[in-house]
């Protein structure tokens, strides 16, 4: 079983692995989105306080959750690449960054649009929104730092350090909702308590979270494929692959 895991460290093997998985991931993502959106927009109830605006939750919460999840993946894979000097780990890490930035941006925008009709304000500098904004800056900093180096190996390693240093922000975002009782509502999903949400809402929300998750894996694999081709362009298998494709 472990041989399979170590095989992933080879770019060529990973590329073929990605090619095999992608059709499945694409279809699963599509189906989950269709189901989730139907559940969320049509078959879930209104909130007795917020009315229909609660439907924004079905895209805001998954985006926010993914923004943090992707950062952790980015930091851990960067760390793995740094400590054990595995090229593929750095490829994963660098490919995560733009996707995570997009999720963070979407979380901020939907949060803002949710806030206006519900609480009358587009923005409030409370703990969670502020730390989500910091997360966006961390993603942008990561990409900027990686771009600034001429040598790719140095760039990978420096960016990995930055990602690991910034990981302190994730617990702050997560726990900020408990530490400060300001605009943001308390957590509704917990491992130990029964969720205080309507069952239909919960169904829609969980479906959308998994949909976003599958979307992340799909887009990540697509990015990684392109990144592998770029980095391994001098290797034999890439050359034969590309020249065979162009001669077809």
């Amino acid at each position, binding site marked *: 079983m472990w041989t399979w895991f170590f095989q992933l460290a080879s770019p060529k093997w990973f590329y073929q692995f990605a090619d095999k998985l992608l059709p499945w991931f694409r279809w699963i993502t599509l189906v989950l989105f269709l189901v989730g959106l139907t559940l969320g*927009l*049509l*078959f*879930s*109830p*209104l909130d007795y306080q917020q*009315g*229909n*605006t609660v*439907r*924004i939750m079905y*895209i*805001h919460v998954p*985006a926010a959750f993914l923004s943090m999840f992707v950062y952790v993946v980015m930091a851990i894979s960067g760390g793995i690449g740094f400590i054990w000097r595995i090229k593929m780990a750095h490829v994963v890490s660098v490919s995560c960054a*733009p*996707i995570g930035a*997009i999720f963070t*941006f*979407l979380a901020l*925008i*939907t949060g803002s*649009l*949710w806030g*206006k*009709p519900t609480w009358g304000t587009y923005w409030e500098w409370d703990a969670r929104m502020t730390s989500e904004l910091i997360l966006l800056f961390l993603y942008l900093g990561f990409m900027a730092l990686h771009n600034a180096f*001429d*040598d*790719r190996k140095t760039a990978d390693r420096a960016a990995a350090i930055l990602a690991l240093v910034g990981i302190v922000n994730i617990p702050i975002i997560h726990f900020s909702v408990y530490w400060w009782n300001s605009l943001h509502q308390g957590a509704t999903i917990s491992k130990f308590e029964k969720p205080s949400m309507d069952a239909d809402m919960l169904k829609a929300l969980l479906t959308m979270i998994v949909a976003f998750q599958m*979307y992340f894996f*799909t*887009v990540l694999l*697509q*990015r990684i*494929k*392109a990144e592998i*081709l*770029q980095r391994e*362009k001098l290797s034999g298998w*890439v*050359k034969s692959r*590309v*020249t065979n*494709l*162009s001669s077809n």
Partner: protein
Amino acid sequence: MYFNTINEFIEMGGHGFYIWLSYAIVLGLMGFYYIFSKRLTKKQEQALTKFYRRMNSRNETSVSEQPPLGEEK
């Protein structure tokens, strides 16, 4: 079903603007990025084809005419 007519669905109890704007931005941006990342592989293959062609033509010229090949990004 929590809506009786299509108009109710679009109106969303008066909050339609915010809700549909959010969904449009999210689905739009995510859809765009999906297509963008899918095309990246193809673009990369095209760029590499050109690159290999240049490398091959360089190999055909005499050694002294070639500029030193450095580590390319």
